[in-house]
Every structure is written in structure tokens, then in C-alpha cells.
């Protein structure tokens, strides 16, 4: 008899997994001036992954739009204005998954992303770790996700023509989410 081969894990770890905010981040990157890349992030986010015994999971996430951080404070103010996130009217960005597929470490999540009053389906790809007991006894999993959205679909329309052709800011924005999720108490 040959030794059993390890099966690729396709089931999500059951339970309720809540965000550890100090070890999680939501960031974005967009091309500007045609060739350079501009990056920023949101400081405050929340996420919960709920997985039933059957392995079916749902990921819900929210980001405080007012917690945007970029290097240039003038731009930070501009990003909060109606040209971009209009944080006075739309203080939160939201995500709700519609389907989660796991193949070993690989993770694909379909869901609905809401920015301002625009909701569109997105597919995010990334990785997931198995549960791991960390310092202090908490059981945690790590999830990373990445997707590219067209910001103009979400009402983030600002742009300006460059003097020598092209536009100041690209439409495609790469979103990167890194989540450390801890098993909820009592589970």
C-alpha cells in the first residue's frame, strides 16, 4: 500500500472569524502621470468571515472612507471631496461576498463592492492560510485578496489632461486587502 497523498484542502475553516485590525490593511495603487504608481491606504476597516459546518462561507467587509491615508495632505483632502469618495455623503465602502472558492492556499471570492452609491460585482483572488494558534492562544487565519476595478464605474471620476498628452490618473485601480482573522470567542 502506498502512503495516502495529501488532499488539497477545498473547505474553508468553519466558524466565525473576526478582523484583527492591527494586523490588517486595505490599500490601493493607481498609475499617475502615465508611468508612475501612486499608493494609499485606509486605516480603519472591518471584516468578518462566517463559515458554516458545510464549509459555505460569507465574507463581509467595510472600510471607513474617511480613514484614507496618502502622503500628500492636499491630495488627502481632495480624495475626500465629491471628486472622489465624497466622504461626507458616503462614509463607508462595503463588500459582501456572493461565492467563495478555495483550492489549497488559493482563494477566489466573488462579491459586490459598493463605493459611494455604486455597487458592482468584482472577483478578488488571493490566498488563505489554515488556522494557526498564535501568541496568546488566539486561533487565526490569514487572507490576502487582490482585484482591479475601474474607478469610473464607482463614481470616482476626477481626471485632468496632461500637457503632453494622456491623463493625470489611470482608471484602473488595484485594491489589495490583507486580513488577519481571529476565531471569535466561544468557538
Amino acid at each position, binding site marked *: 500500500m502506498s502512503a495516502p497523498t495529501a488532499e488539497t484542502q477545498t473547505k474553508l475553516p468553519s466558524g466565525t472569524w473576526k478582523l484583527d485590525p492591527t494586523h490588517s490593511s486595505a490599500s490601493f495603487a493607481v498609475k*499617475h*502621470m502615465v508611468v*508612475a504608481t*501612486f499608493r494609499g491606504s485606509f486605516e480603519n476597516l472591518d471584516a468578518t468571515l462566517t463559515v458554516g459546518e458545510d464549509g459555505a462561507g460569507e465574507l463581509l467587509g467595510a472600510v471607513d472612507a474617511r480613514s484614507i491615508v496618502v*502622503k*500628500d495632505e*492636499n*491630495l488627502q483632502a481632495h480624495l475626500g471631496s465629491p471628486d472622489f469618495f465624497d466622504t461626507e455623503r458616503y462614509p463607508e465602502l462595503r463588500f459582501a461576498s456572493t461565492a467563495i472558492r478555495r483550492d489549497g492556499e488559493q482563494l477566489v471570492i466573488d462579491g459586490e463592492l459598493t463605493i459611494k452609491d455604486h455597487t458592482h460585482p468584482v472577483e478578488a483572488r488571493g490566498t488563505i492560510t489554515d488556522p494557526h494558534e498564535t501568541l496568546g492562544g488566539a486561533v487565526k487565519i490569514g487572507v490576502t485578496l487582490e482585484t482591479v476595478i475601474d474607478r469610473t464605474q464607482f463614481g470616482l471620476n476626477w481626471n*485632468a489632461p*496632461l*500637457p*503632453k498628452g494622456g491623463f*493625470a490618473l489611470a482608471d484602473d485601480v488595484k485594491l489589495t486587502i490583507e486580513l488577519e482573522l481571529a476565531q471569535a470567542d466561544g468557538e
Partner: protein
Amino acid sequence: MRVLGIAGSLRRDSHNLRLLRAAAALLPPEAELVEFTGLKAIPPFDEDDESAPDVAVQQWRAAISEADALLFATPEYNHSIPGALKNAVDWASRPFATAALRNKPAAVIGASTGMFGAVWAQAELRKSLAAAGARVIDRELPVGGADDAFAGDGALAEHDQQLALGEILAELLGDARVHAAA
């Protein structure tokens, strides 16, 4: 060969003054960059004062005339040229036929703390200088994120930007040689 460097910001430690100094370090031995320091003293342009312009205006026009080429480093205020710099260009564009700026080789570069490196101010300054009769190089050097744009030795930290600055200076000096020979 004498290059007059004009920083469009009046601030003592301005990023654009640093940008001019980064440019000065790239000039060949036969060329020197002289910093113009009188921008703040130039009064608002007034046609009534043209018959007897302020001494600051006379010094500005003389500095241009004595230079073989001009190198402007401009910040961007509200997507445009700083007022003091535009005012100086206006004085140096008069009287039109014999203005100090007429036929003078010029290049425009710029730095800003934002992500776009004063690119629109540079475009507007090129437009104004060309309208005043200067021979303006059709190139730009937008240095964004100016707080982090310079290395410890004063050079531009990004290799590509340093190269582009060298190319702009080479083109400016080339134009200045042609102009001097004409």
C-alpha cells in the same frame, strides 16, 4: 556659458531652489548657473511705471540679458504659475520688440510636494515664455513628492529624473550655443 536659474517659489529652502542646484551640479565645466534672488522685490507690473521701472525690474532684465540661457524651476499654485513669477515674466516681456526675454533660450522644470510635479504650471510657464518671445524647450520635468525627491548629495533621487534633467540641460546649452553664434 552663463545660465540664469530662477526658482518660482520665494521660500528660502524651496524645493525648486534645490532642483536648480541639482541642475547646477550637472552642468559641464564651461557652464555655470547663477541663481536669481530678486524675484520678491519686483513690484506688480503696471504700464504706468514702464517709463521708469523700479530698480528691481532693471536688475531682473539685466540678469536675463547677461545670461546665455534661462532655467526656470517652478512650483504650482492652484494648477498654475506662482503670481510673483508670472509678474516677473510680464515685466521681462516688455517692451515687446526689445524685451529681455526675446529670443532667449529657456527651459522649464518644476517640483511640487504633490504627485503631479507642477506639470501644469510648467506648461503654462512655457506658454507665457514663448508668448514673450523666448526660445523655450518643449520638454518638462515634473518632480512630484518633492519632500522625498532629493538624495543626500542634492541630486534627484530617481535615476530617470536625473537623466532627464541632464538631457534638458544639454538641449538648453545646445540652443544657447546656436543663439550665441547667431
